[in-house]
């Protein structure tokens, strides 16, 4: 459905998913309600597009410039779009909160989206410079900003998770991923690149032997560096569910609304189980798609042997290829949503214990619905979620 309508339908899909998730989320015996509509999202997207056209046009013109501007245009575009993306994330959060109703009152969010965007960009720079070690402090700081501007009616939120606590929980994973990477980089640096390039530049049939002659042990060094890089990537993939579990548990345990406190008892093994289900279904799906693909390929092969492939046949084959790709992509995306995303939401919610619920009894209504422009921007810039 999504492809046939080339993605215009996604606004309805997203709204359906949110309605389902919200109305099946129960807090203290009452469920949440999502009042956003797909039409709002579509409008927000169209407005966002019209605002982005001049930005993209400017970037295009800057790239044509031959001077210093042209050289820097890539960086400027990256920074500008990054800033806009963070701005969009904050505005989109405001939209979602003001469309979230609980006990007849809405949530809302104050604070400046630009203030958040600049903060977030600054933190990303610091995080990049510290190879990710500042990430816990970044999340804690940004989350504090978001939550102290978040309100349920007149009940103000806050965030009490500490970046240091997250750092302590995350640092073993950081070492596991970065240690092999350091070895890999050292391995690559140790290679005598100049000799290698010279050997390649001379050309001829005996390049390999000349490389070996000039650099004894070069092959071993490269293999070692590749192995280490591979180990780093593999460990990162294997540890990702653990990382998500740690993050989710730490984040939910830091949430506060007035006297309402949240504690999470999320188990890492449940997150791994969700990912295992995803991998299982994905493999099953791949096998089915493989059989279908092999069958179609056989048909095309037979037709080609008979010499019956003309232009129409080629167009049909190309279309079949495209449809196959779309079905595969949609299949994996659906499996991911049904297993990982839904499970994480469910696990995250079910593992919560709330205390101080008495504070929820006497909240007064505040806040107004916010515009969906942020959602549109986030969508156009591909930084959206749920």
């Amino acid at each position, binding site marked *: 459905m*999504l*492809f*046939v*309508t*080339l*993605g*215009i*339908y*996604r606004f*309805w*899909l997203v709204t359906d998913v949110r309605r389902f998730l*919200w*109305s*099946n989320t129960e807090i203290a015996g*009452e*469920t949440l*309600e*999502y*009042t956003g509509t*797909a039409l709002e999202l579509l409008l927000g997207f169209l407005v966002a*597009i019209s605002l*982005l056209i001049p930005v*993209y046009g400017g970037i*295009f013109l800057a*790239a*044509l*410039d*031959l001077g210093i501007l*042209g050289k820097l245009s890539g960086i400027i575009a990256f920074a500008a779009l990054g800033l806009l993306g963070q701005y969009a994330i904050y505005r989109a959060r405001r939209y979602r909160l003001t469309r979230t*109703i*609980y*006990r*007849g*009152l*809405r949530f809302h969010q104050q604070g400046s989206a630009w203030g958040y965007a600049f903060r977030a960009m600054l933190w990303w720079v610091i995080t990049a410079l510290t190879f990710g070690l500042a990430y816990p402090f970044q999340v804690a700081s940004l989350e504090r900003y978001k939550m102290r501007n978040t309100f349920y*009616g007149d009940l103000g939120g806050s965030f009490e998770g500490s970046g240091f606590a997250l750092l302590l929980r995350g640092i073993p994973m950081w070492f596991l991923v970065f240690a092999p990477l350091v070895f890999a980089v050292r391995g690559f640096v140790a290679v005598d690149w100049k000799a290698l*390039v*010279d050997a*390649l*530049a001379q050309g001829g049939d005996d390049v390999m032997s000349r490389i070996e002659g000039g650099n004894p042990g070069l092959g071993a060094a490269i293999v070692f560096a590749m192995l280490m890089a591979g180990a780093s990537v593999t460990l990162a993939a294997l540890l990702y569910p653990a990382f998500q579990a740690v993050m989710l548990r730490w984040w939910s345990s830091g949430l506060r609304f007035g006297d309402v406190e949240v504690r999470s008892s999320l188990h890492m093994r449940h997150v791994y189980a969700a990912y295992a289900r995803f991998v299982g279904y994905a493999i099953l799906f791949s096998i089915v798609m493989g059989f279908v693909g092999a069958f179609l390929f056989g048909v095309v092969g037979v037709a080609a042997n008979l010499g019956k492939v003309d*232009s129409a046949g*080629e*167009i049909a*084959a*190309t279309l079949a290829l*495209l449809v196959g*790709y*779309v079905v595969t*992509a*949609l299949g994996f*995306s659906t499996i991911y949503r049904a297993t990982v995303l839904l499970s994480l939401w469910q696990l995250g919610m079910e593992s919560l214990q709330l205390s101080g619920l008495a504070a*929820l*009894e*006497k*909240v*007064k*209504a505040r806040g107004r619905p916010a515009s969906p422009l942020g959602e549109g921007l986030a*969508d*156009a810039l*591909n930084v959206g979620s749920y």
Partner: protein
Amino acid sequence: MNSGAGTYFDGVTSARRDVVVELTTGGLQVSDRDGHLWAQWPYEEIEGLTAPDNMLRLGRRGSATLERLEIRDPAFAAEIDARSAHVDRTGALQRSQRMRVIGWSIGATASLLLVAWFGVPAIATRLTPLLPVTFESVLGDAVNAQVRGMLDIRKAGAAFDCGIAAAEIPGRIALDKLVRRLEAVAALPLHLRTNVVRRSEANALALPGGQVYVFQGLIAKADNADEVAGVIAHEIGHVAHRDGTKAVLEGGGLSFLFGMLLGDFVGGGAVVLAAKTVLQSTYTREAESAADAYGTELMNKAGGDARALASMLEKTGGATEPGMKILMDHPDTKARVVAINKSAAAVSPSPFLEAGEWAALKKICAGS
């Protein structure tokens, strides 16, 4: 069943109230056990809201607050549904609305594809002649810097351009003579720059702004100067038709159309790329045929042998190219050769270079 239990939220405070709901003739009445009346909603102002499966959640249309009434008894919920026009418990109304949305989306998609297939090339074709030559030069310089960076993959050794070292100067002079003869006939609005570069493929390409690159491999494969001239004439066709600028406009238009409007929900990026490749290769196929025609005509006018372009094509492209025609930049070689030979002039052509000059051109990349 004219009354039932419910939960009421007044939309002003978060207080939860267990209430009795009574269905009267004009609307429903919400009151608590002490008899305090909380709300009176006419049936036509009641709307159904999203809720879990086991619950009917009601709100009041046009209300300034978010007052809510929740009914958990299915039989009683059905009673309310039957009386209120805007309560859609079975979802029939929503389904019909959804079908309309899907219909419109398919329509919008069809229109988008039509714009991509016909609109973008049409706009690019009409816009290109309107762009001033100075803009094309600026664009050409930017593209040139990029293309040179992509083509020039050598680490060391002689310069990327041939015809600079002392031993290569005679070759450069021969090339200039050949190009001057073509350029004099072509009467282009901008100055042509032709360079032979050190790349082993038998190929040539034209950039916006009049920059033509002939690869060393093409010179090596050519048997006479007219074959080189034929290929350059073909590239001059691209310059005259401003195909490079057109391609940039088309690429930009398609990127915008597909990339921005569709978003990226299921990793549609690859689909966008595939669609763009298919569409753009059809644009260039037309452009190639047009450049062939122009090149043949130019060779005829310059008094050269237009069939040399055809023989060069046969040498580089092979007799027939198997595989997917739809994804190929250049149309079927056989068809091109036939078309060129058909329109080549029958008069006896005069060669572009003397034997000595041709030998010099052959050595334009010799000094390394």
